[in-house]
């Protein structure tokens, strides 16, 4: 008791107190540090296939607007492959139909994401000067706004360039949905977490291409490596004039378009 009232005696107590509190605070953080060290040098545990090394790949997609016939097989295949809710409010990929009229007006539609194809519109038919279909999908941006804004890091870019969502981490704040300029994300009504195209990552690691690419009857979608010379994607880039959606936003999409019209946003 005497020691407490004495200023000099008190000081040693204070040092003791500070020592104890810093040790106990550090011990709170310690498990996190140890755990991070355990996992950082070995990527294998989070990869499904044994012979797939994500560092050896970098994926992208190309879409030739001229080849798309608007059949919607891609959107249908995607929903089946990835268990996307069948309701017409949730899509990982969809196809838009553009109609540009003589007077400069234009209309866009995508009924049920084009899964049932398109109906011919009777009234305006004579005046259409240009019409085409545009498949849309997550652009797997190299500068992804969704990854930037996620408060808990639940959405992230894999070493092979694919943007994924970890549903176990996602808190369902929906900031990523707001940040995506392409409307490519939705909140999965079953899991209440953000959801989007994964380039069919579960297929990629087994050496398969995404379901939408497989299902396309006209090969309007081309999938492949962004950098490797033998890739069909690199060939596509050599043979076509390329553009991306909303380039002014500097999202650096890895989904490239050929023959894209000025009306497409």
């Amino acid at each position: 008791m005497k020691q407490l009232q004495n200023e000099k005696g008190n000081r040693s107590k204070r040092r003791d107190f500070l020592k104890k509190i810093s040790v106990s605070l550090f011990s709170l953080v310690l498990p996190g540090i140890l755990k991070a060290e355990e996992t950082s040098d070995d990527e294998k545990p989070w990869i499904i296939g044994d012979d797939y090394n994500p560092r050896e790949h970098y994926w992208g997609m190309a879409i030739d607007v001229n080849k798309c016939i608007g059949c919607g097989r891609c959107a249908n295949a995607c929903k089946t492959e990835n268990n996307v809710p069948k309701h017409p409010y949730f899509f990982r990929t969809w196809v838009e139909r553009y109609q540009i009229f003589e007077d400069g007006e234009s209309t866009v539609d995508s009924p049920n994401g084009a899964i049932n194809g398109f109906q011919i519109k009777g009234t305006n038919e004579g005046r259409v000067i240009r019409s085409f279909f545009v498949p849309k999908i997550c652009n797997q941006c190299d500068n992804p706004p969704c990854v930037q804004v996620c408060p808990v890091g639940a959405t992230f870019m894999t070493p092979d360039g694919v943007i994924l969502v970890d549903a176990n981490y996602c808190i369902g704040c929906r900031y990523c949905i707001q940040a995506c300029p392409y409307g490519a994300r939705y909140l999965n009504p079953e899991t209440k977490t953000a959801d989007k195209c994964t380039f069919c990552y579960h297929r990629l690691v087994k050496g398969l291409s995404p379901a939408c690419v497989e299902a396309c009857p006209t090969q309007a979608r081309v999938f492949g490596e962004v950098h490797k010379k033998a890739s069909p994607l690199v060939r596509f880039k050599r043979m076509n004039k390329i553009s991306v959606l909303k380039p002014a936003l500097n999202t650096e999409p890895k989904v490239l378009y050929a023959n894209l019209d000025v009306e497409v946003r």
Partner: protein
Amino acid sequence: MEDIIQHLAPLFKEISGYIYPNEIELHWGILVVIYPYVTGLVAGAFILASLVKVFNVKELQPTYRIAMLTALAFLIVAPLPLLAHLGHPEKSLSIFLTPNKSSAMAMFGFVYAWYLMAVLLLEIWFDYRKDLIIWARQGKGVLKWIHKLISLFSRDISEKAVIFDKKSVKVITIIGIPSAFLLHGYVGFIFGSVKANPWWSSVLMPIVFLFSAIVSGIALVLLIYMVVTPLRGKQLDMICLDKLASFLFYIMIIDFTLEALDFIHRIYESEESIKILAELVSGKLFVSLVVIQLLIGMIIPLGAIASVKMFKLPDDLKKLIYFLTAILVQVGIFTTRWNVVVGGQLFSKSFRGLTVYKMTFLGLEGLLMSIALLLLPILILYILFYLLPPWEEAKRSA
């Protein structure tokens, strides 16, 4: 899941033009409107309180403690609407534990904790410490012990200690002003930094948020002061009211100027999104933006206070005008938040169509919950007033 589908199905008919198929679900509803509204009140009330301590506006002394407690009551409630709107509220702690450093939203926990712990609670504690000790000495029963507990069992009310208290309050207030700016400017940044959304994406957003926050905070403290004082059977301090109204008036002019600048800038630059935004403002947002936010929430209150300043009006009429003005301002600022949050989601990012927002009545994100969340701070404030009476005579008896 079925309830979401049932909610979305009828919305189809109300879409005009083309929206991306995933955009039919509007993601940030009324709860996310309440969040910036409430934090705005916190920041505004604190700035008002700091006028007394830092800028020595003596006339506002009667409202100093009211403003501090108001800020605290609303700050306690501020994270609740966010929590209720999360898909997984049970995982919300990971924002604190494993934050993503590049995310503006991840900073929420730190900004909030800093403001609550390092600014508000600390300042209130130092300001009340002497009174708490005296109340604890004079009091009886449970309240005595509550006061003892809140004072953290400190007992020193020597002159030296009281001077230290006063100095601390001043230092904390000086730190508190930029912190209050941070608290609400940060909320503005969450919206202003979304480049995908042209209605939000603006550097002015944090500043507009800030000044509208100060406007709403002053108006709220004015309202509380005008309601509580007669209820206690006391006289309203007319000099204090006039000063409050003056500050409200000047800050509203700044707020109005900033919003006008934002508006003119958009029209003058006339970017890609201008057509769809014009359609939005002249259509679905016309009533809430032009009629309520601009006319009822801004121009009429400005005119009312200006007329009080120009003509010599009797005190009772002045009180009535101030009271009605403060209510209109609250309506106006709430609508401002609505127009930013909901308005920014009513148009498609394809810039080709407009969608709708239908609020539910029941449920976590419904109207009933929202009303409860807006009433809760009033209840907390009532308890705070009981525990820590902010009135002058309570101080004198102490």
